[in-house]
């Protein structure tokens, strides 16, 4: 056999040795799957790393798939999990993992400070640092945004993200629970017949409205603040259901059943659910709403205080499980044939 037959084998072996020496050296890190935007979450996880001395390896999601990408990966890996802790940027995916028995119950110091409506009674997941579902308007195109939310007709300059994942799926699931299947389907049909633009994600909705391509759309508060900080002509109103309830979507944290670093994962869960982390996220550009109790002298940004006020009338999401499953099954039948 001539020498060039060995080249692929030698190359592959060399690279794996290189990987073993340089990437796998040192202590095994705590593996975190993180669906929250890396620009905000990474600094927090690195801070934990710095404070605790526990190395953290993070797997982020991409914008195109968002949280369900990681949820699906966790489901696929259930027989041999490599993730220790899941930081989701919404709730429904976490509920699914809990239903599949993939989350380990834990009620630590962080769990105790979060109100009952935003955590699992069994401790399998806990919510923190939330955002609101809102209507975003282009102020150059819309003078009086109030009342637009319920206006049917030509909707070709309205935008919404694909409802198959992310917070738009939560939005649909809430409607499914509140209105029932028939009314939700009719609403969806009315919007599609009206020509609503379905875009890749909430960021694309924000961009379309900020650029004036669409006059309004459904997105989340963090996206709205992105646009406003860039000086775009945008305003927002919280999305309200008939009873005046808002949709407040928390980040969630869950420990993965079968984790080999459970003690470290618990430390990180408590760190994430601490007042400090909630404050850091509230003061970040995404203005996440703190859900837990804060020290009395804490100063929150004015905008976050207003969001916190709206969040008080939020519809409880921890009982969405069935509605979510049914709604997603229907959406799949409509979108993915």
């Amino acid at each position, binding site marked *: 056999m001539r020498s060039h037959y060995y080249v692929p084998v030698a190359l592959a072996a060399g690279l794996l040795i290189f990987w073993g020496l340089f990437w796998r050296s040192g202590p095994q890190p705590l593996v975190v799957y993180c669906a929250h935007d*890396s620009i905000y979450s990474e600094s927090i996880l690195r801070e934990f790393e710095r404070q605790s001395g526990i190395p953290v390896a993070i797997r982020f999601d991409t914008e*195109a798939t968002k949280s369900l990408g990681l949820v*699906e990966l966790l489901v696929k890996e259930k027989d041999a999990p490599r993730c220790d802790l899941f930081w989701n940027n919404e709730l429904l995916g976490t509920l699914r993992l809990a239903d599949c028995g993939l989350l380990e119950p834990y009620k630590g110091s962080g769990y105790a400070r979060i109100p009952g409506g935003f955590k699992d009674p069994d401790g399998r997941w806990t919510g923190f640092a939330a955002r609101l579902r809102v209507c975003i308007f282009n102020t150059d195109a819309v003078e009086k945004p109030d009342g637009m939310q319920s206006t049917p007709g030509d909707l070709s300059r309205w935008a919404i993200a694909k409802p198959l994942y992310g917070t738009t799926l939560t939005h649909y699931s809430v409607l499914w629970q509140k209105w029932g299947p028939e009314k939700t389907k009719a609403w969806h049909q009315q919007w599609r017949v009206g020509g609503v633009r379905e875009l890749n*994600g909430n960021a*694309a909705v924000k*961009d379309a409205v900020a650029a004036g391509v669409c006059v309004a759309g459904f997105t989340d508060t963090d996206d709205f603040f992105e646009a406003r900080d860039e000086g775009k002509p945008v305003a927002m109103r919280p999305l309200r259901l008939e009873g005046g309830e808002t949709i407040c979507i928390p980040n969630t944290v869950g420990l993965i059943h079968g984790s080999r670093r459970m003690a470290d994962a618990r430390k990180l869960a408590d760190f994430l659910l601490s007042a400090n982390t909630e404050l850091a996220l509230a003061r970040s550009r995404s203005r996440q709403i703190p859900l837990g109790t804060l020290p009395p002298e804490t100063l929150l940004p004015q905008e976050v205080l207003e969001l916190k006020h709206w969040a008080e009338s939020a519809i409880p999401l921890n009982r969405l499980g069935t509605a979510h499953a049914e709604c997603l099954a229907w959406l*799949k039948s409509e979108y993915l*044939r």
Partner: protein
Amino acid sequence: MPRLAQVGVSPVSILLQTVAGLGRAGAVSGVSLWLAMGAIRLIASRRGRIQNLLWTLLIAPCLMPSFLTGYAWARAILAITMRPGWNELIYAAALVVRLMPVAVLALYFLPPPLGVEGMHCYRLLKRNSALASQRFFFAGLGAGPWIAFALVFLLSFGEFELAAMWSLKTWPVVLFDAQAGGLALKETLRLVAVPATVQAVLLGALVARGNPQARSRAVPGTGFKPAGRVARCGFWFYLVAAAATGALCPLALVIREALSGFQALRGNALLIRDIGTSLFFATGAAGLSWSIAGFSKKTGGERGSSPKVGWLLGAPGMLGGLVLALLLLAGFQTRPLRALYDTPVPLFVALTFLLLPLALCLRWLCNATRPAPALHIARMLKNNRLVWHLDGRRRWWSLFLLFCWGYFEFTASTLLAPIGMTPVIARLHNLSHYGQTAVLSAMICAAVSVPLLVLLLTATGRGLYARIRGQSSYLETGSRLPGTRQAA
């Protein structure tokens, strides 16, 4: 409750998107082939610096990473995405600009077996039989146009990145949504069956016509009728416009945006690590695919390459990043392979398979176009510098192309990268969530400049090595030429 389809709103279906994709790919391939046939006449009729300039203009949009193009034009495209007809048109035009060079290369290296004179003589002889003349005309074109058409068709049919960034509903995007939306792998594979069958049929057709070496013995770049003056002007205009819209403008837009963001990159260890990860995977996969492509050639024996083995090896890669990554994900989740799941192996395997079709093509091109007699003499003389100029240089360029392709691959990198190893393209995609920002633009510039740096460093190093070795070899071999006696 009526289903959506009954009230006139079409749901997104794989079948529908496959049909639409077929139409789009057919149009893109047809237009690309038509343009390529004109462009090749212009390029083949020029020599020296002008020809080099034409090649540069032609290839530039093809080499520009899809991510950079999509990112740079994102704001402009945003307005167009609201008009379904227009966004389809712009997308198809972008595909033509990116893929037409592939058709030109296929035509260039698979020239018609008959020259212009031969065709003319035959027409004179067969003037009385239109049918025979027509049949001869098609035979006279050789395999080039068919292979060019099929390659562009396959690449445009499976395109994912631009479509996803520009919010278009194509079958790979729908499939990606399906997977992300929690569909079981079995279901996803069932959905992919239709487009995969289409691709398999095309691949089969390519295999049937895929031994171009046996079909065309003509010298590459010959046998093309020179373009007329009007056509020349038209193709010059097209090439300049394509290079401007597909490469120069996106690059300029990103660099302009990045100027104020470079400061923020100082000490960004994470970006450096991600770039390192991408280099690691791209280098390994490029080397592996190139070696395997060489291995497949050896199995063909002394006569040359074994096209069947080659196409067989290349077939999985032609299925596209998504399907291949999903299959590998499922494979590495099975009990015997599970231990390898959280290692670089799955991504190496995926990238190697994805690069193999290109590696096979490049290997074949290198072999088909090398000046064998001159190379033989250079090797006899042990003149490394000459060997490098005659053969090594083109092989090195081929490897570099493979490296770039692997470096910028997104789908498989996202799905199969092990924990703690994020390829830079995945991170950039993630950050593009925030739209165009100075820091992200600077990060893109940094990520894109790395392959250029690799190019510069390796080219300089190799050039120096070849120069030193070449000179010394020449001096050494000067007294040992065949037929001469060695000094005691």
